[in-house]
């Protein structure tokens, strides 16, 4: 699949040289995001390279109604303790999204292929780009499966979504396809083992009466064929955001329940985050101070999530949009990740869009 994505990128690169006409098909676009994070423990020690990512994506508007999209993510983990990657996996290359879309109207859009589930709204909105998000960190509930994330963020199947006309700004999404496999961090569509059917839905509203406000809920049901047992998975998420005039407030709560078939036991994992940021006006508009609270409580004793860690962190920092393609971020973060003790870090991120 990665090869197919690269071929798609190559085709897009050839066609992207010319400026796109207003209405002409096919129209191609190739883009990328990249970032590097450095961290320095406040208890001493050297500045360490925490990790870096390159996110490549290509879209092709083939006709008025048909389009295709591909995205692949290359990650490199550093030495820092809170690196997103497991220590034994320094490089990580994954196909993130790869789908064809049929979009005859705003009321209906069908996507077929590997998509992001939308069970976590942060993942649905930001996908994998750290350039677009305000803070350095991805909240724990939106971590990728290979980053120690617990929620099923990738999904292979059919996803139908659309807007309902009207002042309520209602939108929906519903999908059926393949649930995650027997290994939690195995997301590649053609090589997963033990997959089974899954369904998900999403509803949201963004009423005209409160410009910038949005709220929604999502649900996911599936089965996990984990080694030694099959579990029913039932996830629910609610979120809300208010983004207007430089103010950005976002919050999300997610609950994931795993129930082994034929057993009374239920493993419940919960997580939430709150993000507040503000972009001043005038000369300081290039800055966006932010504050992020991040919490994750993993169900004790659940083997399927054995390498997912509790998290209880907050960070405060500033994003500086140096220009439209380059953002610098710096923050102070205190967290409890793999280690039993809390640690505090001062970090810097350089992120690009090109």
């Amino acid at each position: 699949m990665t090869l197919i994505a690269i071929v798609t990128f190559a085709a897009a690169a050839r066609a992207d040289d010319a400026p796109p006409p207003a209405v002409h098909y096919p129209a191609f676009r190739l883009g990328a995001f990249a970032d590097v994070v450095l961290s320095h423990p406040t208890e001493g020690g050297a500045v360490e390279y925490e990790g870096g990512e390159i996110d490549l994506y290509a879209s092709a508007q083939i006709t008025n109604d048909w389009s295709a999209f591909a995205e692949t993510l290359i990650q490199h983990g550093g030495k820092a303790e809170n690196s997103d990657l497991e220590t034994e996996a320094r490089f990580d290359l994954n196909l993130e999204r790869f789908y064809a879309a049929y979009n005859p109207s705003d009321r209906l859009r069908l996507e077929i292929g590997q998509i992001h589930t939308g069970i976590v709204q942060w993942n649905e909105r930001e996908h994998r780009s750290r350039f677009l998000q305000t803070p350095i960190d991805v909240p724990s509930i939106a971590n990728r499966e290979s980053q120690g994330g617990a929620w099923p963020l990738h999904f292979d199947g059919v996803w139908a979504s659309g807007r309902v006309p009207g002042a309520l700004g209602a939108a929906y999404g519903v999908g059926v396809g393949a649930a995650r496999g027997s290994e939690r961090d195995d997301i590649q569509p053609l090589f997963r083992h033990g997959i089974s059917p899954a369904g998900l839905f999403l509803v949201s509203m963004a009423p005209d009466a409160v410009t910038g406000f949005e709220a929604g809920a999502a649900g996911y049901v599936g089965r996990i064929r984990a080694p030694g047992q099959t579990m029913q998975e039932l996830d629910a998420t609610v979120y809300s955001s208010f983004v207007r005039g430089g103010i950005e407030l976002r919050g999300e709560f997610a609950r994931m329940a795993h129930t082994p078939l034929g057993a009374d036991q239920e493993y419940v994992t919960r997580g939430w985050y709150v993000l507040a940021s503000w972009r001043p006006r005038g000369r300081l508009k290039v800055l966006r101070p932010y504050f992020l609270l991040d919490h994750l409580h993993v169900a004790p004793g659940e083997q399927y999530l054995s390498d997912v860690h509790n998290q209880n962190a907050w960070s405060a920092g500033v994003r500086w949009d140096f220009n439209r393609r380059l953002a610098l971020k710096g923050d102070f973060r205190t967290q409890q990740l793999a280690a039993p003790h809390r640690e505090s870090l001062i970090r810097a991120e350089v992120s690009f869009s090109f």
Partner: protein
Amino acid sequence: MAMRARRLMVAIVFLLAASSHGEEPVTASVSVLVSAKNPMRDISAGDLRRIFLGDISRWHNGHRIVLFVRPMDTAEGRLFLDRLVRMSDIDYSQWWLGAVFRGRVANAPRVIGNVDEMIRAVAATPDGIGFVAAPPLDTGVIVLTIEGKAPANPQYALRAR
């Protein structure tokens, strides 16, 4: 460690407090234009915002909407940001970068640097929509009313206050 954290928080508070006044728009209103071939004559402020954020991408006839915008450092660009999309030029640029990245739209709005060129572009594009500071006269474009109000109306949504 506590001292460093305190210094960081003081710096953040200083930045927040040092925010200067915004760049106030200097034009009275923004006129939203469509081609004279477009049957649309009136639109709600909510739908207009959704159009310029890419959430509404089609006209009623199913044709894709073609977006034209003025540079965001012009008077009408600032008023458009301030009264309609309600975000800064940086956030608007990133919004569209995100919209393309989410796979929802093929392209960001085309930026038209010249007013006459904007009017010509909208007039020549039946599915186009754009905006200028002053309503043009008989140039093959129609100025939309917003919730029944023309740009001269004091209650017009895209009017400086």
